[in-house]
């Protein structure tokens, strides 16, 4: 990440960290102390997270002031900038991988594990190897090998965990 973008990221993260620390602290002091059952006041479950909350908020505040000094608050978001960002090849690759993986996790348990894993691997491979501009026939090798790998890997993982490690598949 570029230095200037890092300062902007630090600005947002610092606010998040400060709020997180604060919330952790507030939730911690609201935790019961168990004094009514004769417990020692310093055995209260909120003590350690409370202290950690203060430390996180304090470090968030330092990060906040540092990002302010480096003008991290100057956030310039333009539609052109966003278009450029999403047209970037790296971002496209990242988003494809991210969305496919998240969908895979969401669908786990709803579709048969072997089938879902095979579909996931197959779509993942062809998302990066298949060229929409070319004919399917000219890319039949890509499709065939992607399908072969998908079936082989999904079957191997399913077999290994189901029958060797005796794990009930999700």
């Amino acid at each position, binding site marked *: 990440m570029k230095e200037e973008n890092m300062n902007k990221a630090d600005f947002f993260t610092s606010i998040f960290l400060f709020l997180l620390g604060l919330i952790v602290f507030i939730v911690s002091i609201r935790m019961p102390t168990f004094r009514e059952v004769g417990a020692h006041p310093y*055995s209260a479950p909120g003590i350690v997270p409370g202290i950690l909350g203060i430390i996180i908020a304090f470090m968030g505040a330092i*990060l906040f002031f540092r990002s302010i000094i480096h003008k991290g608050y100057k956030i310039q978001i333009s539609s052109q900038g966003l278009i450029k960002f999403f047209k970037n090849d790296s971002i496209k690759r*990242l988003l494809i991988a991210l969305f496919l993986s998240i969908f895979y996790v969401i669908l786990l348990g709803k579709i048969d594990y072997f089938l879902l894993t095979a579909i996931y691997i197959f779509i993942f491979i062809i998302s990066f190897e298949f060229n929409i501009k070319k004919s399917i026939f000219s890319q039949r090798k890509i499709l065939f090998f992607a399908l072969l790998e998908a079936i082989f*890997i999904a079957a191997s993982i399913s077999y290994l965990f189901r029958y060797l490690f005796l794990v009930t598949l*999700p």
Partner: protein
Amino acid sequence: MLQGLIQLGNELSKFLTPQLIFDVLWSTQLGIIVGMLPGLTATMGVALMTTLTYKLASSHAVLILICMYIGAIFGGSRTAILINIPGTPANAATTVDGNPLARQGKAGPAMGIATTGSFLGSVFGMIMLAIFTPIIGNAALSFHSFEYFWLTIFGIVICGSLTAPKDPLKGWISGFLGLFIATIGMEAMHAYRRFSFGNVDLAGGIQLLPAMIGVFGFSEVLMVMKQPAIKIVSNKIEKVIPSLKDILKYWKTIIRSGFIGTIIGAIPGVGEDIGAWVSYDFAKKASKEKEKFGKGSIEGLIAAETGNNAAIPGAIIPVLSLAVPGSAPAAVLLGAMLIHGIRPGPLLMIENPSFVYQVVSMILLATCAMFILGLSLIRVFVKILIIPRQKLMPVVFSLCVIGSYALSAKMFDILVMTVFGLIGYAMKEMDYPVAPLVLGIILGDLLDSNLRRSLILTNGNIIPFFTRPISFVFFLFIIFTIFSQMKWFRNFLKVLGLIIKKQFLKAKTN
């Protein structure tokens, strides 16, 4: 000493069965392959292997994990030399001189030297582990809750400083976030469910392995897919076995790097990458051929590889003696030991003294396997580097998913893995080191119980935290580590040094 050697011989002989030797060979080779593939790290390899070995007997499983660990850290040197990309973060220093050697047409000898350096580093670290683990373990028996409290803070602070040298604040934030994450779920004293908001799964806490698989596995899948494709440059690999002359010439560098690597490895959460860089830096400063560094120096390559492999046994020393991991893969190893019912820590030398010798035997076997496999089969396994990432990464993610699920068959663990993968990715993008986060998750329980216990003992008085000798030393180290990151303190130390020097010279002339 003799008794120790006899015990080591006894434990080693127990591993010399055809089945176990076969397991040593395949797991080390698998480790080498994992290390070779950019994007697959030693931590990810050990974490995924933990899920694959949890049905085995404890010593058998730990043996396979150690082989994977040693193989992966070594395997990364192949990629570092051949394509100038460290296979694992531990091999970053190897690229500096390894790749220039490959470009000079010396890829084979460079890999041979890296293998020998790794072998010697591991052996050096193993000897240090055998000597120091019982000593540290015995010393730790005198630790009370005050010392344990400071030990956890010390681990977080030093790990944060060393893994984020550019911006230690981010390292500390990462560590304290990890400590906070560890407080989620049911606490031990009153069985109160903290930060679970009525969710039954959250009440069980965040399990270490799914979180680690996410942080080191899923986030790495995303990182690898984001980066441009790696171009493989073909290198002719001819002579691999290095000349004894080359090795003997740099014996001082080997011993120094072995020592530095082990010490750095033993520092909580710091790991092999820092071990390699510090060893490399020391070798450069002490070298008679400084000008060769960065241009294909054999000495530089030996220093980096000896340093990172010596850090492996180094990282296992605090695992066994204090139950505090020295590196991220060692953290998984610690988790695996706990899963298998082994309780590392100061009491290990009392409850299960032979286990330390078992671990030494395991390291010895893994190191020998790494040396043999490292000097053979090079041409065959280098071909693995041509596997395209889009074919490899969905397989890795599928293993991350099933690996997190397999331990307790809970869908929640898959969710934890995914969320931590996203957190890990965001942290890496914003230059937050993830090792302190993981260390925090591991040490959180130790901090929580020991801080509360200490406060109960002293009735809220914090003076004993500073007056007990070991606690005070820890406190001074922490303060020094934090202040040493600040400019004014460094300037103050410089001025102080100059004044002392002047006074010393004055006293000498008088």
